[in-house]
């Protein structure tokens, strides 16, 4: 690493540290209805309110809130699914693409609604502009907004006392989209377009290359989709190569902009949580826990990438990486996106060193809680916080409390459910694919690397990340359907337990803290929380990791690659 590499790492982390707290405060104001930067958009909210009517105003209990989430997302999946099947008959399809298969359409619909953005299709060869914009881009916004709504509902549940309700889903989602996602995306899209990201409705021109070959150049409204793809922890690229494609990510500057956009909102909402529960220290504690895990993963990955590799006899592995970005930017990106449940890539993760690839895998395996998906990272982390409070809180001789709320059987039940469902889906899915012919036939690599490919696919789906290890041909009926199921469990298997916890905690009374209370906002708690995350989150997948990336790393050291 030269000093420019170090500078880039430092700058990227510094921006996160500096921008996230004020962003969190702004988001807090949005959700509690205080005056903020974009209050002048209020007339638009009123229009939505008028359209939705009473349901957008009444407070909801957790069951009503869950039902609204379910209804909203079911409609979303259906809409995206049908729009794809009908794309041949719809306008704005200059290339005249036919409808994708039913299983691919289903997979894509589920993938975008669950904020996973796993792409079993190749954007420029499969979907027309209308589907890209009306189905995919719209869900990029909405799935991110839903994630935030659930996180905010959980924060309300913790902050309220003796209350039956946790807010209104429609109001939260409208506000999140209108005041946070839209303005920031528009801003970013304009700047990105300025750096050279394409934004047009042209049909694909054909160019003649220097070698006299004919080359089709894909086009489309990319900038607008890429902005929200990064900000909303979506990651579904406009083009198949995602942010490794020069039209999606033309320059080092656009790369840096896209990079910092990945973690900005997921980090900001942590501070929003702190403000909502009336404890900024709590916000900082969670932020620092996430930051420490991020920094640790980044350091290990960079070390692994820059270490001497006996297999190729040099220290820097450039194979599969964009020459324009180099190793540091590729590793920054892979760490940030895998931490953030953002499926975008600017280098193929399959080409990372086994350890760096393993870290990306491990980041997702922990449950996408290192900042994680927008909103979902926060509520996922709170699940681990509750578990930590329960395990360690007993050691001070009191029944555990978090922010004045007693943690009892019901909460633990829901925490276990939310951790169990995605893990179970991932392990069973990957285990079956590793032995069934339908799973094995899609592999391009042999040996442990093939196992990593399978594992990565299911982990990515279960964690709602969406990035792919590449190398796996995921567009088969088997993968499309099983991955869609895993994505659904990874998303709603967490959301509903979380909302149940929110409802339960809201109804509880508040016990004021005393010197005998277990504190959850100091350095010791950060250490504890990391310990629980690594042991509970990590040990679940450690056997699988051993047979994938870990064994591959040792083999690579002895000069064997796959």
């Amino acid at each position, binding site marked *: 690493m030269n000093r420019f590499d170090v500078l880039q790492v430092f700058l990227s982390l510094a921006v996160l540290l500096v921008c996230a707290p004020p962003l969190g405060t702004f988001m807090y104001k949005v959700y509690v209805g205080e005056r903020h930067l974009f209050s002048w958009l209020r007339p638009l909210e009123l229009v939505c309110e008028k359209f939705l009517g009473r349901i957008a105003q009444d407070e909801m209990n957790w069951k009503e809130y869950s039902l609204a989430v379910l209804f909203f997302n079911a409609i979303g999946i259906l809409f995206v699914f049908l729009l794809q099947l009908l794309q041949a008959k719809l306008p704005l399809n200059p290339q005249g693409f036919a409808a994708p298969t039913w299983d691919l359409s289903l997979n894509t619909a589920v993938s975008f609604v669950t904020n996973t953005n796993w792409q079993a299709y190749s954007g420029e060869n499969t979907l027309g502009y209308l589907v890209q914009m009306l189905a995919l881009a719209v869900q990029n916004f909405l799935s991110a907004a839903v994630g935030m709504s659930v996180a905010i509902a959980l924060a309300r549940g913790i902050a309220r006392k003796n209350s039956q309700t946790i807010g209104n889903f429609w109001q939260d989602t409208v506000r999140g989209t209108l005041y946070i996602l839209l303005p920031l995306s528009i801003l970013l899209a304009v700047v990105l377009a300025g750096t050279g990201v394409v934004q047009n409705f042209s049909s694909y021109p054909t160019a003649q290359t220097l070698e006299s070959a004919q080359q089709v150049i894909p086009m489309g409204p990319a900038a607008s989709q890429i902005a929200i793809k990064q900000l909303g922890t979506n990651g579904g690229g406009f083009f198949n190569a995602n942010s490794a494609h020069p039209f999606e990510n033309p320059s080092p500057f656009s790369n840096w902009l896209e990079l910092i956009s990945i973690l900005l909102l997921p980090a900001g909402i942590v501070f929003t949580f702190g403000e909502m529960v009336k404890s900024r220290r709590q916000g900082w504690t969670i932020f620092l826990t996430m930051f420490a895990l991020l920094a640790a993963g980044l350091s290990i990955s960079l070390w692994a990438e820059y270490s001497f590799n006996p297999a190729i006899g040099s220290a820097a592995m450039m194979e599969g990486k964009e020459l324009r970005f180099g190793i540091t930017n590729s590793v920054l990106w892979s760490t940030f996106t895998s931490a953030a449940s953002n499926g975008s890539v600017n280098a193929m993760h399959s080409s990372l060193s086994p350890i760096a690839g393993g870290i990306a895998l491990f980041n997702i395996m922990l449950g996408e809680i290192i900042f994680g998906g927008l909103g979902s990272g926060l509520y996922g982390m709170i699940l681990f916080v509750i*578990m930590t409070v*329960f*395990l*360690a*809180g*007993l*050691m*001070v*001789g*009191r*029944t555990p409390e978090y922010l004045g709320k007693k*943690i*009892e*059987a019901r*909460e*633990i*039940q829901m*925490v*276990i459910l939310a*951790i*169990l469902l995605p*893990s*179970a889906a991932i*392990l*069973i899915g*990957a*285990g079956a694919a*590793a*032995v069934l012919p339908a799973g094995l036939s899609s592999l391009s690599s042999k*040996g*442990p690397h*093939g196992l990593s490919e399978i594992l990565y696919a299911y982990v990515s789906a279960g964690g709602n990340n969406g990035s792919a290890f590449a190398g796996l041909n995921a567009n088969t009926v088997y993968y499309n359907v099983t991955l869609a199921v895993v994505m659904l469990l990874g998303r709603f298997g967490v959301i509903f337990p979380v909302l149940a916890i929110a409802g339960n905690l809201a109804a509880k*009374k508040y*016990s*004021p803290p*005393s*010197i*005998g209370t*277990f*504190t959850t906002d*100091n350095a*010791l708690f950060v250490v*504890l929380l990391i*310990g629980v995350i690594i*042991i*509970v989150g990590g*040990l*679940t997948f*450690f*056997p*699988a990791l*051993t*047979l*994938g990336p*870990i*064994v591959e790393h*040792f*083999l690579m050291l*002895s000069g*064997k690659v796959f």
Partner: protein
Amino acid sequence: MNQSLFDRKILQRASVDACVKLDPRTLIKNPVMFITMVGALLTTFYLFTGHATGFNIQIAIWLWFTVLFANFSEAIAEGRGKAQADSLRRTRTQSMARFIVNGVESRKNSSDLRKGDVVVCETGDTIPGDGEVIEGVATVDEAAITGESAPVVRESGGDRSAVTGGTKVISDRILIRITNDPGNSFLDRMIHLVEGAKRQKTPNEIALSILLAGLTIIFLLAVATLKFFADYSGHAAGQDLSDIVTVPVLISLLVCLIPTTIGGLLSAIGISGMDRLIQKNVIATSGRAVEAAGDIDVLLLDKTGTITLGNRMATEFIPAPGVSEKELAEKAQLSSMSDETPEGRSIVVLAKDKFQLRGEAADVKDMSFIPFTAQTRMSGVDLRVGNASVQIRKGAFDSVDKWVQTLGGNSSPEVRSAVDRVAKAGGTPLVVSQDAKILGVIYLKDIVKGGIRERFAELRKMGIKTVMITGDNPLTAAAIAAEAGVDDFMAESTPEMKLQRIRDEQAGGHLVAMTGDGTNDAPALAQADVGVAMNTGTQAAREAGNMVDLDSNPTKLIEIVETGKQLLMTRGALTTFSVANDVAKYFAILPALFATLYATSGGNGPLATLNVMGLASPHSAILSAVIFNALVIVALIPLALKGIAYRSLGAAALLRRNLVIYGLGGLVAPFIGIKLIDMLLKMGGLV
């Protein structure tokens, strides 16, 4: 009621019970151990499918031991209760009750008595059932219940009217109204409680069980899918792993990973928590109450008997102008010669100590004592000194002042200020007069119990607020509160105020504990999260609280809170220990499973590098982990029964301490333990 931790008899009985508890219907209540037993069963069946190798047999044996050890820990904890129950049951022998209907006495079997029946007991009789004394006074030997040999007084009316079936009247005669039907008496309930027959899981125990069951399912999935990943890897490497990735080995991995340590000891911890209270002579009506005790953050304490010694003591004579201290002491002593109250006696003692007065002035004749009455609110003595008749009185300032005025006298400002000074200092001023002249003031002091201040400081460190309840006026109350170091006080309090205070504190999210003995305490005892009734108290109070202190020592509330905290801490510490253990077990078993995977030319493959402990062979590594996992349960039984050491530190310091011991210890200990067992196995040639 004390016994050593491991009585031989209890150990014998527990060994038998451990096998009885293998009944799946019992074991299913503990999912972690149930899964372990299913694993042991599967491994045993596997032996009969032609795989009865020495290694597999050893694995099967140790898996069974794991379950048995867990059952054993529970059986020991229960056994200690059963032994106590047996000794209690012996006191519940059938006795003939002397049954009274309309004043006519007849005999009736004690087991036929019903609620509302009236019986009579005289010297030597065993009280046939729980009841309320409705007539008479008697001394009763309650050693059967409390273990305390000194007899106690039971009398009708007031707060000492409750008697317990099975205790013995040793003097006098009382009429008792029976308050419980047979089978439902205090003794019966005590027997049930110590036996654990009616033991229900407490809320926190339920939550922890859910967590443990959840972790078990997660690890079950991790191990089950490992089989698939191993198949893939074996296929990819062109190797046959089927001789190492076998059913017993996978089950071993599973049993090592699931939280067997805490899962096995969980119920023992709960039972022994109640047991520890019983050792302290406190009977909790439910485990829930013991758990709640750990959460208490407000203690309501009665001043008298808890914070101060029961009695006020004379500590100073303050003479009025023109009166010598000795004269005041002499007259005060005379007035108190026949005063049998502790205050009166303390005046006599003080006068004797200070001036060697013995109340035997030669020229005093015809002493006639005037007892304290509610009307005069004074006591004293009329006597003749030479020929003159003298009236000496002592009492509260207001009463004596009024009395003196009727005789034409008056109080001096000096006396008034002395009275104020004493009151402000938390004492009770007693004014002494001779005829129309006020001689001075006796300073009666509430003596704060030794060490109580330090106790409250400890409580404060634990985050517990202490509130002193007293009938005294605010001035006096404030002074004593300051001296004792309580956080808050309620002066001139009534039972209603007490109840209201509890409700207020609870509305503010606090958990409140209190002690009480009177019938008027009953509502507050019922409302408090932990209500400790004194055994000397009324039946109503004993029914209302969720704990009964057999020693009737209000200070014990503090020990009760500590026991509750200790219970929760023990659970947390062993859970942390159990989960932290997993790291080492992975490092033992995974390399053992896949040591040869992707080996280029026989020998060890890349994953052998993970064998950081340098364990002798794959078989020895797996067996060592399983044996460690089983033995650690046995090793921790004493800790589970005794509870981990409790110090009254703040939460942060406690956490740091326990984390280092049980968290860090839990990470490191198995590395050492497994390595040691591995070396022993190798030496013994068992693998």
